[in-house]
């Protein structure tokens, strides 16, 4: 299960969060924990450099993309390597939606499109799509490339 996808700016303000199977009373804890994890480790990080951590039986993969920080939390089959796959899809789709690694402003400008991308990538904690080209077509309700069918 993909427990959470959280995107914040560098100041730790949440721009977008999607929790799955995390009780609402635990969400604040996760928010605080992830933002602190980023503050401790993402200083001076290269763009898209992957960071990884684990907390009990839960895995966390996080990175910097332009002006935003992205955190993904998973457990069971969504271990650190599966999360890396998810992270790769998310970052490439966001770059696709924004045309480049986004600044915070650009990310917010393309907010609607990014929400659609995430909706295609993860649905209620399960990875659904992994190819950015297909995702790009799907968010415009265009069918996938005919070669895929």
């Amino acid at each position, binding site marked *: 299960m993909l427990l959470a996808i959280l995107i914040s700016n560098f100041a730790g303000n949440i721009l977008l969060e999607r929790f799955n199977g995390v009780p609402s009373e635990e969400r604040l804890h996760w928010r605080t924990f992830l933002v602190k994890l980023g503050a401790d480790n993402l200083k001076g990080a290269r763009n898209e450099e992957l960071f990884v951590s684990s907390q009990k039986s839960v895995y966390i993969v996080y990175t910097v993309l*332009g002006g935003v920080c992205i955190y993904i939390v998973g457990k069971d089959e969504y271990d650190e390597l599966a999360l890396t796959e998810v992270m790769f899809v998310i970052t490439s789709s966001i770059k696709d939606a924004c045309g480049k690694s986004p600044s915070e402003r650009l990310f917010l400008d393309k907010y*609607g499109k990014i929400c659609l991308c995430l909706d295609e990538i993860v649905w209620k904690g399960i990875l659904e799509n992994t190819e950015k080209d297909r995702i790009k077509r799907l968010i415009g309700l265009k069918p996938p490339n005919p070669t895929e069918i």
Partner: protein
Amino acid sequence: MAQPFLKKDDDHDDEVDYSPFLGIEKGAVLQEARVFNDPQLDPRRCSQVITKLLYLLNQGETFTKVEATEVFFAVTKLFQSRDLGLRRMVYVIIKELSPSADEVIIVTSSLMKDMTSKTDMYRANAIRVLCQITDGTLLTQIERYLKQAIVDKNPVVASAALVSGIHLLQTNPEIVKRWSNEVQEAVQSRAALVQFHALALLHQIRQNDRLAVNKLVSSLTRGSVRSPLAQCLLIRYTSQVIRESASNTQTGDRPFYDFLEGCLRHKAEMVIFEAARAITELNGVTSRELTSAITVLQLFLSSTKPVLRFAAVRTLNKVAMTHPIAVTNCNIDMESLISDQNRSIATLAITTLLKTGNESSVDRLMKQITTFMSDIADEFKIVVIEAIRSLCLKFPLKHRSLMNFLSNILREEGGFEYKKAIVDSIVILIRDIPEAKESGLLHLCEFIEDCEFTYLSTQILHFLGIEGPKTSDPSKYIRYIYNRVHLENATVRAGAVSTLAKFGAMVDSLKPRIFVLLRRCLFDTDDEVRDRATLYLNTLGADGAVEDMKEFLFGSLDIPLVNLERSLKNYEPSEESFDINSVPKEVKIQALAEKKAPGKKPTGLGGPPPAPPSTIDAYEKLLSSIPEFANFGKLFKSSAPVELTEAETEYAVNVVKHIFDGHVVFQYNCTNTIPEQLLENVTVIVDASEAEEFAEVASKPLRSLPYDSPGQTFVAFEKPEGVPAVGKFSNMLRFIVKEVDPSTGEAEDDGVEDEYQLEELEVVAADYMLKVGVSNFRNAWESMGPDCERVDEYDLGPRENLAEAVNAVINLLGMQPCEGTEVVPSNSRSHTCLLSGVYIGNVKVLVRLQFGIDGPKDVAMKLAVRSEDEAVSDAIHEIVASG
């Protein structure tokens, strides 16, 4: 809140510092949402408003029921628009709004239309939305379309249906299980993701059917799975099959091992890693099997990708717990990871090295760790401390350098949990390595000179009081302890006074000086400190027996504090002083099963009904109020209620076994669940033919048992005094049943005698044992002494795993597990479990169980029992031998 940090790839060409959502306000956005009702829809404007709604929801904003309903109804109007972009947004916002069941109806027809549309993408999205908001009834209507969608040639549609299936399986399993054939077909799909989703769903459908999972794995491991994600799932399912079938294998060949080994050469790193991990986690993995997995993990250790390094070192860390030698080949690679920028990786590397290192490498490792410790967070430091503790216990000769390391880091900055981990480690080392005692105690003394945590100071003072007087020169600790009386808060000062008293009690030469110090404490500003000083001065100065004084100072309080607190609260000041022996010792307080029915009519006088009794005390009060049982003496133990009927039967009955020295009373708690019946003269007819030592002496029927108003009936048996007699009892509920008119609630005058068969009941050896814990098992064990010790070995035969065997013995004996030893680490080959309890006759019993498991899962157990009475030690062995 996190501090801003440097941006590496800042976009200077963008207008920064200005958010398109600046000043966004829920009320205003809800107003804007009225645009959805315009006769001439503006798709662009509508999409913008939906984006704002999404932004609010993603910020954790919530809509009231009215607001959500209003927005939802407005959004449904947008189905009129043919704009593709807007339609996509509509699908998302409907899912986010999660309309309630009564609202869904308004959008169902639009979504069902989309689900059967010729446009593939409408179908896929409509499936996802419908499945999110649907209930069982609607699902049956659309099931046909979903089954078609699973085998749709468009992979997006198929995946949407399959992932919907995974979600729906939680709520409507019986419907989803009917899709097995279609899902099976989808597993063979050429589309990688469809295969991944289909495999996940098929496994979930069949997970309880071991044979079906076996067949699924057999067929897929021979064929080709396209997606690496699906291949990883297959490896997981294969490991499960191997785990479950291993015990049936006669030849020693491991089924599917070749498949796992083949996956080590897969082109996807994810698959290689999954296979390596699966191999390392195999039950009874051989060193030959481990070698191939460890070789690939070793390669990952030097990968440029941090995730691979992390995954590899995490797995090797786990392997090192059970097979440290197998991991030593990786030590050089792991040493280079100590300087890894990712501190999680570095910490895992360090702790793995600490597990695999040999005695000669300890000093070198400690040097590396010293520089490493300063730049990691407390949570990582705690992991390292725990690893160092294990290392020190493994190599006791190295205690000097390891203890020095611990004392050095104890002086540095750190939070409570970190400091506690260090202190705990030092305490354990002092207990287990006698040579480390004196230096360890001095380190702790130095620490309390400058300790900001009250809890740690008091814990250390308590420990000093026990261990300090046994050292060669106890006087050197007095200065540190007495300093606390001057410099600390009241809690620590009180702790210091108790510690001083212990030194006075144990070391005669120090006694006069301790008296001087304690007298000074009589002028303390705090009541507790003064009271303790007075108490100890009187105790130490009294002429009473030395043993009594020591028992008072050092004896453990063998009463659970919650029970003591409750008894003190219940105590009403009177001529009769509070008797600590009246406090129940049972750890787990069982609430009485019977509950007073809610809304029960007030008693005739209109006074408040008595509060429902909720403790063992309450049982005792209840039983002593019944004249037939009043002379049975003190209640030794009351069991947890044992159900004698299935759930949701006409009459619910459970029984509580009350054990006295020479009697056993069964308390049958009965509930009548039929509103049209009144039961009268309710008794339980007990057949004790399979309980030879028991003779029925009394029975107390229940006069009336109205609907939903529980009551009790009792049956008492005599048994040989002090003997833990066991036996089996069959039970029959007998009563007179009267019809009740539901409208008036009045019962008919005439009734019919009837009977109702209940389940059997057993009195077992564990019923004669009270679960009473000890705070320090080792101390309790040593102070009990070997005089009444009995040791023997038992073969427990084949068992599922070690944990199952440990649980079985704990349940058989009914004793309290100590120090968390009831938890068996997975894959353990041996385990020690410590138990304590009080046997009938108030005899303290301690048990040390040592388990070992061999290849074919045969479990052997060594049982050592110490008690205050050798007959009781023998009795414990008899329980195990006959169990």
